C-alpha cells in the first residue's frame, strides 16, 4: 500500500512536470525541402543536377517521373547528368526529423528558337529583364523575382513571335513564377492565334490559398506548321480576398517561352 502511495505521488509529480515544459521531440518537426539546381533547366545536350540539404544524417531520394519519392526510390549520392526532359522530384529523410516536402525540378528540351519577338505591351519599368528577348533567350530563371531572367508585367502581355521559316510547332510552353507573398500570381489564361490556325485559349487554374514560391508553366498544344504566332497572356486583375493585397492587380512574371 505504501509503495502504491509513493508511486502515485511520483505519477502526480511526473504529470505536473509535463505540463510545465514540453521539449521538442524527434519526429515532431519536418526537414526543410532539399535545395535542387541544374546547370540549366533547358537541355541542349545535357545538364548536371545537384541536390542538397546540409544536415548530418540527411538522405535525399528522388524520382524522374514526377512521383513522390520514398526511401525505396533512387538515392541521391552526387551530382548527376541528365539528357532528357522530365520532372525530377526530391525529398529528404532523417532519423530524427519528419521527411521534407518535395522539391520539383522540371527540365525542358531546347525548343525552336524564334528569329524575332515584337512586343505590343511592355513590362513594368522595374522588371524589364534582359530586354525584349528575355522570354526567348533559352534561359530559365530561379525563384528570385529580382533576377534579370524574369520579366514582370502588371498588365496583359502581348507579343508576336516570328520564325525564320515555317516550322511545325507541337506545343508552346509558357514559364511563370508563383510568389504570392510578393503579389506574383499565375496568369489567368493564355491565348494563341495565327493566320494559319484558329485561336486557342487555355485557362490557368487560380490559386485558392497561400502556396510556397514555385516555378510553373502552362503548355498550349498547337500541332501546326507556322511562320508566326500571336501570344496574349492575361494577368490576374484582382488579387483574391484571402490575400493581404486583395483587390489589387497581381504581377505576372515570365522567364521563358519554349516552342516545341
Amino acid at each position: 500500500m505504501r509503495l502504491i502511495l509513493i508511486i502515485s505521488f511520483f505519477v502526480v509529480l511526473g504529470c505536473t512536470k509535463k505540463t510545465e515544459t514540453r521539449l521538442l521531440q524527434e519526429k515532431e518537426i519536418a526537414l526543410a525541402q532539399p535545395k535542387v539546381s541544374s546547370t540549366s533547366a533547358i537541355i541542349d545536350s545535357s545538364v548536371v543536377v545537384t541536390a542538397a540539404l546540409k544536415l548530418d544524417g540527411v538522405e535525399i531520394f528522388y524520382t524522374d517521373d514526377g512521383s513522390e519519392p520514398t526511401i525505396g526510390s533512387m538515392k541521391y549520392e552526387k551530382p548527376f547528368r541528365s539528357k532528357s526532359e522530365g520532372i525530377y522530384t526530391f525529398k529528404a529523410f532523417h532519423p530524427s526529423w519528419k521527411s521534407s516536402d518535395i522539391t520539383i525540378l522540371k527540365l525542358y528540351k531546347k525548343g525552336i528558337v524564334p528569329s524575332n519577338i515584337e512586343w505590343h505591351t511592355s513590362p513594368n519599368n522595374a522588371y524589364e529583364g534582359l530586354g525584349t528577348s528575355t522570354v526567348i533567350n533559352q534561359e530559365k530563371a530561379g525563384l528570385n523575382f529580382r533576377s534579370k531572367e524574369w520579366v514582370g508585367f502588371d498588365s496583359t502581355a502581348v507579343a508576336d513571335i516570328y520564325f525564320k521559316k515555317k516550322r511545325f510547332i507541337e506545343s508552346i510552353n509558357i514559364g511563370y513564377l508563383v510568389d504570392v507573398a510578393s503579389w506574383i500570381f499565375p496568369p489567368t489564361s493564355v491565348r494563341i492565334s495565327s493566320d494559319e490556325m484558329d485561336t486557342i485559349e487555355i485557362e490557368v487554374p487560380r490559386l485558392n490559398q497561400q502556396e510556397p514560391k514555385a516555378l510553373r508553366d502552362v503548355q498550349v498544344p498547337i500541332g501546326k506548321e507556322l511562320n508566326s504566332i500571336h501570344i496574349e497572356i492575361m494577368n490576374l486583375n484582382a488579387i483574391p480576398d484571402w490575400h493581404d493585397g486583395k483587390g489589387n492587380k497581381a504581377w505576372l512574371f515570365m522567364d521563358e517561352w519554349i516552342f516545341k
Partner: protein
Amino acid sequence: MSRRKFLKRSSCLALGLFAYPAYSSAFSLSRTEDVIIGHNSHQYKVDLSWGNLDPLRTPVQDCHEMVQDSKGRIVLLTNHTKNNVIIYDKSGKLLETWGTKYPGAHGLTLVKENGSDFLLITDYERHQIIKTTIDGKVIFVIDYPADTGKYESKEEFNPTETAVLENGDFYVADGYGKQHIIHYNYKGELLNYFGGRGKGDGQFLNAHGICYDDRDPKNRSLLISAREMNMLKRFNLNGDFMESIKVPGALICRPVIHKKDIYFAVLQSKNASNSDSGFVLIMNDKNEVVSCPGATAPLYKDNQLDELYQTVRLFQHPHDVCIDDDENMYVAQWNSGQTYPIKLTRV
C-alpha cells in the same frame, strides 16, 4: 542530462525506486529523444510550451522584440494593442502586462539609468520613439527627425530599433523608412545622422537593427544589420563606416550582444522557396558564425562563409532573440500565427 532531469532522477534514486522494475518502465520519461539544435559551443533543447498564454486574455500579434530587465524578468514587445508589453519570469509565468497605444511596436531596448530600468520603444506606425519606465509610464516621445532635412513628413520615418551608450546618448535605425541612423543625446536632442538608403559601404537596405558594441573597450562601435543585404555593418560612434561582415543567405534582424558573442534572429533564408524559413545565428568574439540553430552548420572556405539556410521547419519568421543570465535564449517571431516566443535551453 539537464539539471531538471538530474534532480528528478536523483530524488527517485534516493528512494531506491529505480531498483523496482515496474517503476522504471512506467516512468520512462519519453519514448523519443529531446531534439538538440545548433552547432559547436551553442546547442539547445527546444521548449515549445514556454510563455504560452490564453490568447483571449493576453494575445500577441507579432512578437517583435524581447529583453531581460535588471530583475531578471523577460520583457516581450508585441504590436497587439490589448497588451503591447508582456512581462514573464524566466519560467514563462506571466507577471504583468501594459501598453495599449503602440500599434507599430517594433524595437525594444533596455536603458539602465541610476539603478532604474527604462525602455526605448520604436513604433513604425506612430513614426515615433517612446521612452518609458519599466512599468509603462511615458518619459518622452520623439517625432520624425525633421531637423536633419532628410524627411518631409512623418510617414517617411519608420524606426525599427535603438541602441544606447553609457552616457545616455542613443541611436535610432530608420530601418523601414529612409535608412538613416539618427544620433540623439540623452534628452532626445538631435546630434548627428548618417547612413541612408543605398548599396554603398556606409548605406543600408533595411537597417533593421542596431546595437552598441562595447566588447572591446578601446574600440567601442555600433553594429547595424543591413537585413536585405545579408550583412552586418560596423560604424564608429561618429557614424563613420568601419567594416562589413557578410552572412550569406541570412536576413539578420538586430544584433544582440551577450557577453562576448552576438546573437541574431534570422527572419528568412534568402533563397528558400518557403517564406517561413528563419533560424537563429550566433557569432563569437571574432565575429565568426559558430552556430545556426535550425539551419546549416557554418562553414568557412578561404575565409568566406558558405550560404546559410534553414534545414528544419522549426522556426517561422524569427524576429528577435533575448539571452538570459542562464545562457538560455528566447526567440520572438513575426508573422508566425500569433504564437508566443520559443525558449531554447542551452545544453
